[in-house]
């Protein structure tokens, strides 16, 4: 029975992988990675996640950092607008929710904005978030 079960599971798994590969091959490359400059600025703590769902500059502002942050935030805003519409919500509501999630998803060492507006460095402990965050 155990063998049969394993067989059935592995068969299902293989089918699943095959289907996923087929779909993945057709769709645009999902789960793209961060731009190296963005990844570097993020891990260096130069930029951080704000409560409102957008990226902020933590250190003294430079034109390069401003460009990088604006570029990401414009793209984020477009995504928020689309998803907000699909969910019958406002842009601000969706962005704030995404901010909750983005702060929760920060890795230790990265910066995020606490509810009092201060920049905090993420540790292994849960981040300090808005009381409305899920």
């Amino acid at each position: 029975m155990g063998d049969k079960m394993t067989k059935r599971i592995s068969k299902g798994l293989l089918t699943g992988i095959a289907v996923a590969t087929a779909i993945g091959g057709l769709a645009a490359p999902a789960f793209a990675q961060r731009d190296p400059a963005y990844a570097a600025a993020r891990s260096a703590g130069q930029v951080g996640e704000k409560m409102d769902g957008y990226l902020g500059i933590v250190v003294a502002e430079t034109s390069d950092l401003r460009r990088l942050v604006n570029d990401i935030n414009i793209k984020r805003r477009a995504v928020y607008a689309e998803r907000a519409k699909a969910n019958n919500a406002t842009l601000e509501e969706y962005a704030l929710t995404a901010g909750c999630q983005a702060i929760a998803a920060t890795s230790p060492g990265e910066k995020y904005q606490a509810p009092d507006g201060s920049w905090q460095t993420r540790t292994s402990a849960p981040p300090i978030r808005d009381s409305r965050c899920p």
Partner: protein
Amino acid sequence: MKSGYLTGRPGAAKTPSTQGDRAMGGTKRIAAGLLASLTLAGCITVNAPEEPIVIELNVNIRQEVIYRLAEDAGNTIEENADIF
């Protein structure tokens, strides 16, 4: 017979007395509320807010909305990993 007496009586005694209490409490509460609102109506002065324009927008977003959107927002972040 003893048990019949016990189950019968408190029920009979309880029902009217509780209802009576409730009715009384309700009337009292309404009266108290009316009095309080009348008293307060005289005291409260409504001032136009001077500063909180940006913050108010955030405060107006309710927790239930955030909870409703949470799953979708989480997926959005995962699917757009290049900009998050």
